[in-house]
């Protein structure tokens, strides 16, 4: 073997390592949120605002041609508070944008003069905006972006807190859920569960419904923090449970969908195992449950008995991963895809026919 060949192999292997490993591997998936009139999608380092009716692009952030590269990987869809949308990037910056125009209104820096990245989460209530980076939750004033209070958790925070107008319910990867006072951030109660909490709890009728990275889903009294019931599943429950008509719907990473009585946790039905993991929360509209899988399928199930109404493979040509929560409203179901030809797709709820799709210019 000649020396040139050896050098060539070394350089090629180095490039391969860089390509395979990647200095900046993808760390999250695209996410979407549907406000009153705008569908906002976060993907890698950008946010796109679309018309929910036809998928037309209204604006994008950072704005094209402005060369603003201060945003890094975006972990969650923007959270809306009136005309303001809060987005957080993994370089520990939060951005408040105008929902109408995408103009940046203010930004909040949580780096503390240290480099590095971390998963971030954003949430909103009518009074406050929330930004979580590393193990700290910042309650930000919508008008100025100044922190009203901050709370440190014992573990990383990967999901936005659930809120009513008085309390904040913070999930953490250290297996704890903590209730905080909305005005002061004071701790009201804390409950330890069996697994890490990676998604926002669902608050309904004074109860918190939460899935854990363990084979369990829980219902917790929001006033006291006491666990009302626990339901055992086959796989980890990552996505937030969806509550509708006194029923709780959720899925696990083994591809099972469950429907329970919200009051006592009794099982109504359990679906046939789907093709692959379900990371996201179910969406429900008109008694139809919509589920997306890591393997790239969208399922419509009957909410009353779990029977399948239709299924479709979103993008058969690509190894598409559907990890974000689907959104169902006004006869359409919106799906955000990770590796496919389109970033966002809307399907008719009844038939599964494609209504429109959106792919940003590369």
């Amino acid at each position, binding site marked *: 073997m000649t020396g040139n060949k050896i050098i060539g192999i*070394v350089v090629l292997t180095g490039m391969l390592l860089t390509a*395979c490993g990647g200095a900046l591997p993808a760390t999250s998936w695209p996410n979407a949120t549907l406000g009153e009139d705008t569908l906002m999608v976060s993907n890698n380092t950008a946010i796109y605002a679309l018309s929910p009716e036809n998928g037309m692009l209204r604006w994008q952030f950072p704005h094209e041609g402005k060369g603003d590269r201060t945003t890094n990987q975006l972990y969650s869809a923007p959270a809306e508070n009136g005309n303001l949308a809060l987005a957080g990037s993994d370089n520990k910056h939060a951005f408040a944008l105008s929902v109408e125009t995408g103009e940046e209104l203010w930004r909040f820096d949580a780096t503390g003069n240290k480099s590095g990245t971390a*998963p971030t989460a954003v949430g909103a209530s009518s009074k406050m905006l929330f930004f979580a980076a590393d193990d700290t939750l910042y309650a930000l004033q919508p008008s100025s972006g100044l922190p009203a209070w901050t709370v440190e958790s014992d573990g990383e925070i990967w999901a936005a807190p659930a809120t009513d107008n008085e309390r904040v319910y913070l999930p953490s990867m250290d297996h704890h859920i903590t209730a905080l006072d909305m005005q002061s951030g004071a701790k009201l109660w804390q409950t330890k569960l069996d697994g890490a909490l990676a998604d926002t709890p669902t608050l309904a009728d004074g109860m918190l419904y939460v899935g854990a*990275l363990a084979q369990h889903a829980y219902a917790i009294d929001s006033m006291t923090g006491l666990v009302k019931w626990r339901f055992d599943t086959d796989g980890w429950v990552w996505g937030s449970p969806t509550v509708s008509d006194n029923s709780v719907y959720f899925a696990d*990473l083994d591809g099972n969908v469950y429907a329970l009585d919200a009051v006592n946790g009794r099982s109504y039905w359990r679906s046939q195992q789907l093709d692959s993991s379900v990371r996201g929360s179910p969406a429900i509209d008109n008694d139809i449950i919509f589920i997306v899988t890591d393997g790239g399928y969208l399922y419509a199930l009957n909410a009353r008995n779990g029977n399948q109404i239709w299924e479709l493979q979103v993008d058969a040509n690509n190894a598409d991963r559907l990890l974000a929560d689907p959104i169902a409203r006004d006869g359409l179901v919106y799906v955000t895809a990770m590796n496919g030809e389109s970033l966002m797709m809307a399907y008719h709820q009844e038939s599964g026919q494609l209504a429109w799709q959106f792919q940003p210019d590369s």
Partner: protein
Amino acid sequence: MWNQLIIYPFTNTLLLLYGWLGDSFVLSLILLTLLIRILLIPLTAKQQKSQAKMQAMQPEIKRVQEQYKGEPERMQKELKKIGYSPASMLGGCLPMLIQFPILIGMYRSILHAIPAAPLQMVDLYQATYDSWFPEFHKMIPVNRHFLWMDLSQPDRLHLPIYPDVGIPILPVLVYLTTVMQQKMMTPPAGDPKDQSAQMQRSMMTMMPLMFAFFALQFSSGLSIYFVTANIATIAQYMYLNRERIEWNNFRIPGGLEIPLPSIAAASITSNVPTKSPPAVSPSNPTEVAEKKISRRKAKRLQARKARGGSRRR
């Protein structure tokens, strides 16, 4: 395929060791690296032995090169006679090339095993063997912190007095140990103007820099793997060649001098007649080797005299 053969087994072994070693991911990483090195011993030991042999032959090679300076064909013949092969001169980087598929596997496995982001957590769930971890949820989140390091991030030490400045401790250690390993295992070139010698020099500059660059860019868990693997390789080399090890000072760019073991030329003898011994400094291994050879010759002569001048058969 790549996942099933390399990444998933590495990931699960890392997590298994993590559980056994009191939730210490660094210890788990070090132990897995050493296990991999042990499994690679049949591949690397032969390589290291032949490199040591080449290193010990250097005085002979130099002598032949000087002796037949104007006769390149004759020089090649004589070099072949003493067992020298130019391809072997480049053998110093071959063990590193063997490491590359493992290196890529390790990098991906580290990211899998210490998920610092949601996507990696989804992948980890799919990668773990259920039968190995009946209560896997209790291991989550995997503790990825050690001393000042977050093993999923590139290493930077932030001192309280200069919080804005990140000092890359592990990348520096990766660089130093790679230089040491290369310096030990690559035989010094005979003729500095020789093409293979020039290439060898550029390799010796490039490789440590490349590994240090990786260490700067990638997770510090990978740097732990680099440093452990380098130290293990050095220790293995020293053990295999323990009878011929000598310690010399080696100057690292920047003025730092560290004692570094090298291979003495004593055990190599040649059947090529010596015209004139090359001029060497007292610290030159050639002189040391020749002194040892002279002492052996004197002993043999004494023994022959004692037997009445006859050769031993």
